[in-house]
């Protein structure tokens, strides 16, 4: 009994820290949920009221939300697919034992990571510039007319996805490379002795053993890209119109352009709910948790 009591008191010592951490973590979430049910905005700033589900009904029955949701899916899937493909391909290349200057390549690969993303995006904004940007100047060498990357919707998407690819591929390459290097060399040697071709070794050894890593990276990448604020906010601001706007940027704009904090909270809550649901589904079907635990 005395032992149990001691244990109980031992746990009480860490209670303040638990409360503090939980408060810092939970308070913003609970507060966001709370104000999403009120009329809290700049014009009802100090005194606001509970309005129930009215804000949610307004958002879900309006057309903009669905457009922005589709955009968010385009942005996430459109970015994630090339990021994984390029990351995996580069990892396979860098994993070649006979590749000269592997370390130099790998160091160069980390360059996009070395710069703060915000600065990189400002630089990219200049590079995509219609008049002075190096992208249009490079295209001009091949006789291609300057492209208005910011004002034409398909071009804006292309620009965003390519910029995000540049920003993100070092992460994917690094993770894939470390996973590739953890595959026992003996498996390849045995397969080679058995007469397996390069393709067969890739198909029957590399891919199955990389499956969990790919799933892990895909889930992590999905959640990160879904809420990746800066590329869109800095490069297009969600424009032209709302054509490239995503939920997280739209929520920000609702709060800080329109001063409608309650609606910003609604977008944030819905955004988080969708993301949590999708993450649970993906985790369940990919088996990543089993691999980790």
């Amino acid at each position: 009994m005395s032992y149990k009591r001691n244990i109980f008191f031992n746990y009480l010592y860490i209670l303040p820290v638990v409360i503090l951490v939980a408060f810092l973590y939970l308070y913003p979430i609970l507060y966001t949920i709370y104000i999403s049910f009120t009329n809290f905005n700049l014009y009802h700033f100090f005194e606001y009221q509970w309005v129930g589900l009215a804000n949610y009904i307004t958002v879900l029955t309006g057309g903009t939300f669905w457009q922005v949701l589709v955009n968010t899916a385009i942005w996430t899937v459109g970015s994630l697919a090339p990021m994984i493909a390029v990351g995996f391909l580069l990892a396979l290349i860098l994993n070649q034992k006979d590749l000269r200057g592997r370390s130099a390549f790998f160091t160069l690969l980390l360059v996009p990571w070395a710069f703060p993303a915000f600065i990189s995006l400002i630089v990219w904004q200049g590079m995509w510039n219609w008049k002075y940007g190096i992208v249009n100047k490079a295209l001009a060498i091949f006789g291609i007319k300057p492209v208005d990357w910011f004002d034409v919707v398909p071009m804006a998407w292309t620009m965003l996805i390519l910029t995000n690819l540049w920003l993100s591929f070092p992460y994917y390459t690094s993770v894939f490379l470390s996973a590739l290097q953890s595959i026992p060399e003996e498996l390849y040697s045995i397969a080679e002795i058995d007469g397996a071709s390069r393709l067969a070794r890739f198909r029957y050894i590399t891919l199955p053993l990389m499956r969990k890593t790919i799933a892990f990276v895909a889930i992590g990448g999905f959640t990160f890209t879904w809420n990746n604020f800066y590329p869109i906010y800095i490069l297009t601001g969600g424009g032209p119109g709302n054509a490239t706007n995503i939920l997280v940027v739209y929520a920000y704009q609702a709060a800080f352009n329109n001063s409608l904090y309650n609606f910003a909270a609604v977008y944030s809550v819905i955004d988080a709910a969708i993301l949590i649901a999708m993450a649970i589904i993906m985790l369940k079907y990919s088996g990543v948790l089993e691999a980790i635990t």
Partner: protein
Amino acid sequence: MKGLGRTASIAIVVVVVIIIVAAALYYATMKPSPPPSTSTVVSTTTSLVTTTATSLVTTTSTATTTSVVTVTTTSTPPTTPPFSLSSLLDPNFVCNQLLGGKTVTITVWDTYGPPEDQAFNVTLASFTQVYPCIKVQVTRGVGIATANFVSAAKAGQAPNVYRDTSDDAGKLFAGGLLLNISKYINPADINAAYIPVAVKNFMLGSSIYGLPDNVNYIVMYYNKKFLNDTLTQKMFGVGVDQLNTNQLLQLCQYINSTYKVWCVAYGAGQEWGYRFAAWFTGFGGRIFDERGMPQLNSSAMVKAMEFWYNMTYVWNYNAPGVTPSLEQQLFTQNMTAIIFDGPWDLKIYQKALGPNLGAAPLPTISMTGMRAAPLIGSTGWVIASPQASGASQQQIYASLAFIAYVTSKDAEMNLWNFAGDLPAQKQAYDTVMTLLSSGGLQPAYMNDVYKGILEQAQYGQKFPNVPQMGFYWPCFHQYFTLYFANRTISAAQAAQEMESCMISNMQQAGLMPSS
């Protein structure tokens, strides 16, 4: 060592969650301490007006406002609001009467840019010397019209004094974040001290919520190398300041073909509606009707949008895909003839173009015969409400003295001298006008430039500062840029959608005007 039993663990978790939820609910529903009672202020005002009127009965029967001015300038100023501007500019009165000899510290957010900041430094140094009883803590580099003020206000930590645009401050005032200055300073004094348009910019209903430090609007800057009075006189028999849009198109054709530069650099594809409002009005439109309902869904909006689309993508007179900074680069590097910008960037253009710099009002729209009319706005100093800043009454009084001082004649002359800001204070404005009319500016070519800038003021429009204006920018931007994006939607659809967007936002904010 064994862990806690399941029941104990659950109990701890439940307790923690209950504590957090209770704390969250407490803070979420907590109301900040109330500001000084409005009714107190009102009753004070009433008693002052009554007393003043009584004392002047024998001398005059004119309007009460005139009487108030007379009393405050001739006798001991009252120590309860509203004060006269002159009493707030009297350090003895402020330090000894209002602040009771105590030292009061106020916080100030400075939103000036680099050249203006030089002027502000001079004014600030002078203020701290003249008012030893007021300590000023300045935070520099704060963005103008940003959300930082709102965030700080929510926490009850807003600065006592802030400098903002008149329209953004209008939103803050509507939200109760700013002080109603007209309850603390005689409105008649404010009307007498500042030029009317600047005072109106800081008025919502009959309340004044700020003191203006300048007047601003866009004009047409041009490069005389490509476009000048000689050329326009020869082509059309008028000066650059009398051009219409048909003539502008002919000029653009001439400039493009002769000099191989852009005629205009106007980043319409990135527009938020500030500069476009001038064209919209010129085509016969208006942003709000008398009730405060948006009027963007109009043929004027459609025609104005089509005009700029054609200028950019059909006639190729306007550079496509440009941002404001790129516009400046093109203009300062002699790669475009015309740019639409305000006096705040004048020094940049003066440095780059020297005597080749010209300024004129925006052209007349040939279709309507009306001038493109830019929004005539102001920036100025505002005071956070006690609820937003937690200010004491003495801090409010010190803040009033501060904003009176930084918008006084000397302060606004400093802004004119260092940054070329057009004064909003009447005496400073008159001084500048006298200087300009005598051609006393150096270098001499700047006299003509300022003449063009001031000429534009005749053709401007009042900057709407109703809170609904806050929705004009994002809604306009959203649908105008979509139209400009290869005409993803038609101009008519864009006009319709931007108005619907504004109405929808107004409904969501509870800002629909009562019918």
